[in-house]
């Protein structure tokens, strides 16, 4: 595989984590414009753990998950009375607050391989884990892809659980949920927190792969893309967000010659897909139809 292709595939894998985190929040009925911040927190956490503290990657990614989900937990409590548009704006404000705070975080250490540690607007440089451990881009792709696959498989199994079904009901109709004894509060808190963790984990991998992160990388466009992938792909099944990523990045890469006009194409593409598939490609209704077909086949 060419290095170019490996890089594209790795980027697709990493951004899938944001898409899935947006998906998890959409399931409980909210729209978050702030998942990029948790991605960023995960990235900074992992950079700190590996480059500054010399911790193992597994522990570093675990920290990334825990810390970013803690921030998400705070967001979920702060927004407990907000929904719809108000939640969307609150999530964006929270994300910008965290991102802009990173501009002020400075703690650097000089080493043989250069300055490391968060350095305000200049970001966190020299995250050398990938070189120190002789990880080739191909190997890193394998690490990222297998993490993503594990997550997807986990979600596919959980999709049939009572937890997820109740969460979907909370997202669809809180009044019915309440009437059958499901408290929306817990599901919202739980899913927003989990989504933060997933984004943070992806951000951690991103920091290792990129070897350098700075606050401006975690702006709103990153979150908007993640959200758009979930919406394009559909909320019916955990593979939806991945399909969104695949369509978008696949297409955007193939039209790189259009340079900055690519974003116009991206907007047009989202619009076109949503006209044809108003509920995304793998919509909940499509999944239900397929399930019904399978049941009928089994009974026949």
């Amino acid at each position, binding site marked *: 595989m060419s290095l170019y292709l490996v890089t594209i595939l790795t980027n697709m894998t990493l951004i899938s984590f944001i898409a899935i985190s947006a998906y998890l929040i959409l399931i409980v009925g909210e729209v978050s414009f702030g998942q990029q911040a948790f991605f960023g927190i995960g990235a900074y956490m992992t950079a700190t753990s590996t480059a500054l503290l010399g911790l193992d990657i597994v522990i570093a990614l675990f920290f990334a998950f825990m810390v970013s989900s803690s921030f998400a937990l705070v967001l979920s409590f702060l927004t407990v009375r907000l929904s719809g548009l108000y939640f969307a704006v609150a999530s964006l404000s929270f994300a910008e607050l965290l991102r802009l705070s990173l501009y002020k975080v400075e703690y650097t250490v000089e080493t043989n391989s250069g300055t490391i540690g968060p350095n305000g607007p200049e970001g966190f440089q020299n995250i050398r884990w990938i070189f120190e451990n002789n990880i080739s881009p191909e190997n890193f792709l394998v690490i990222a892809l297998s993490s993503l696959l594990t997550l997807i498989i986990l979600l596919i199994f959980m999709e049939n659980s009572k937890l997820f079904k109740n969460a979907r009901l909370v997202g669809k109709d809180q009044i019915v949920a309440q009437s059958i*004894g499901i408290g929306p509060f817990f599901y919202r808190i739980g899913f927003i927190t989990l989504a933060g963790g997933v984004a943070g984990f992806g951000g951690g991998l991103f920091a290792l792969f990129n070897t350098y992160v700075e606050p401006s990388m975690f702006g709103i466009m990153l979150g908007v893309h993640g959200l758009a992938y979930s919406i394009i792909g559909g909320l019916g099944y955990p593979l939806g967000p991945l399909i969104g990523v695949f369509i978008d990045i696949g297409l955007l890469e193939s039209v790189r010659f259009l340079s900055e006009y690519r974003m116009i194409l991206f907007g047009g593409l989202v619009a076109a897909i949503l006209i044809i598939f108003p509920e995304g490609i793998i919509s909940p209704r499509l999944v*239900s139809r397929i399930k019904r077909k399978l049941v009928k086949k089994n009974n026949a």
Partner: protein
Amino acid sequence: MLELKGLKKLFGGITVLNDVNIAFQRGNKIGLSGGNGTGKSTLLNIATGFLTAEEGAVILNGDDITHFEAWKLSRLGVKRTFQKVRFNEALILKEQLYTSDDIIKRNLHILEGADIIDYLYSFPNEVPLPILRKIEVTRALLNRPKYLFLDEPSAGMAATDLHDFGEFLNNFIDAETCLVVVEHRLELMKKIDAKIYELRDGKLVNGNIFV
């Protein structure tokens, strides 16, 4: 026993309920009637936790549950249906019973009695309204309600459907449940032989009646 004591509810300065007292005893069937805007649905919403009254209390077996959220009341056995049936268009009806296959199997007689088995794998938009109403009631029955409030179940139902619906209620609401039907038509209440109260000018007309 579920008691509503001294309920007062205002909507923008208009008094909808004014010192309403009623008690619901398990095993009873009660009809709450009244014209449009007399506060029937408001009373139901307060009893099931979907609204909070300005004054007064909701008492369940002696415990004050006035400020409990609706889902907590539902867990305590206070269930309801909706005037406009609420289903997710994207899910087959079986999934919208929100219960396990095991419980469905054990309560198959209810589903058979409701005549809804043929519709379990349909989407809501493929199913006539009377069936959807019975599915809503079945959903509540599968969770063994102690108090079941039906909000305008006859809305949009023809006379024959209503007869059928009443029959279903008579067959499957047992002595463990208090059934409360909120309606402005009387046919269904007569069919299930409910004790009828009327809301007028924010009061239960027959005064403070304990059933």
